[in-house]
């Protein structure tokens, strides 16, 4: 059940959901509150959880196409900025400059120069 409440001119989006047996979850904006029967018995206790954030921990740069790594411009431990040149991937017909999608530290470099890679293969992990 979704509700929109207006309190003092500010609008709140409230959602009430059943969360497993004997539990009710109430979402107010970004925050979640779960009420269970047991807690109710004890009175007014709340379990507050936050909505799982989008998973930003997986910062992987993958090969967009099969090819050969012809040059790598970063070392493990380097700080990499978004859009920074990471490596060159050569295919039969083209040279591809792979740039980073994220800001982050180069945690692991999984490929070496002259290595062949498949499409979708993880090349570098950032953190």
């Amino acid at each position: 059940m979704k509700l929109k409440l207006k309190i003092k001119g500010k609008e709140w989006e409230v959602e009430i959901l059943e969360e497993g047996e004997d539990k009710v979850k109430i979402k107010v904006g970004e925050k979640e509150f779960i009420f269970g029967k047991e807690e109710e018995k004890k009175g007014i206790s709340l379990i507050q959880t936050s909505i799982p954030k989008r998973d930003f921990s997986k910062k992987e740069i993958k090969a967009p196409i099969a090819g050969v790594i012809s040059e790598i411009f970063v070392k493990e431990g380097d700080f990499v900025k978004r859009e920074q040149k990471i490596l060159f991937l050569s295919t039969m017909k083209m040279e591809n400059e792979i740039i980073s999608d994220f800001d982050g530290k180069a945690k692991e470099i999984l490929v070496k120069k002259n290595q062949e890679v498949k499409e979708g293969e993880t090349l570098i992990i950032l953190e």
Partner: protein
Amino acid sequence: MRDPEFKIKNFKEISSTNQKAKKLAFNGAAPWLVVVAEKQIAGYGKGKVPWFSPQGGLYFSIILPKSKVDEHSFISTRRPLFGEERARVIEDLQTLTILAAFIVAKVIKENFNLEPFIKLPNDVWVNGKKIAGILTENVIGQEVKLSVIGIGLNTNIEKFPKELENRATSLKIELGREVNNEKILKKIVKELKEQLKTISE
């Protein structure tokens, strides 16, 4: 006369037309800008192999328009998945490189009565020797950010250094006369643009 459908930016001397075009595209230059150099100091081909680029030859790079994947080309009506769309765009760019080789060969054949041979994927030969090379370069992040296609055509090169002499030739060597670089350039770019229209529509 109609406005030309592409813009030309001329340089006397440049490190590489592909490098310059990539930089210009990165900084927002519009597609179909053609970077031309009379001479390249650090011209290169596939695998960063140097491309002999003295005065006289034709060296240019074209900033390509961003290709969009036609959603109808995907099975069912679902939207392409992330990554999948990018892969399609890259495939199209590979095809484009071959198309460019074909166009260079066509222009040579139709204008100079020579019998060019396309050495797949990206070279053109005449009489058993290389006369042109093509290098497409992409910058890829979450999407294909930019693409340039570079073409080196040995036009008015009189002589090659010893180590290339047996493998490279030029229009001047084959024809025994000079050719008009600007005319050839315009023919190639125009044809490429036209052909691209046919395949993307």
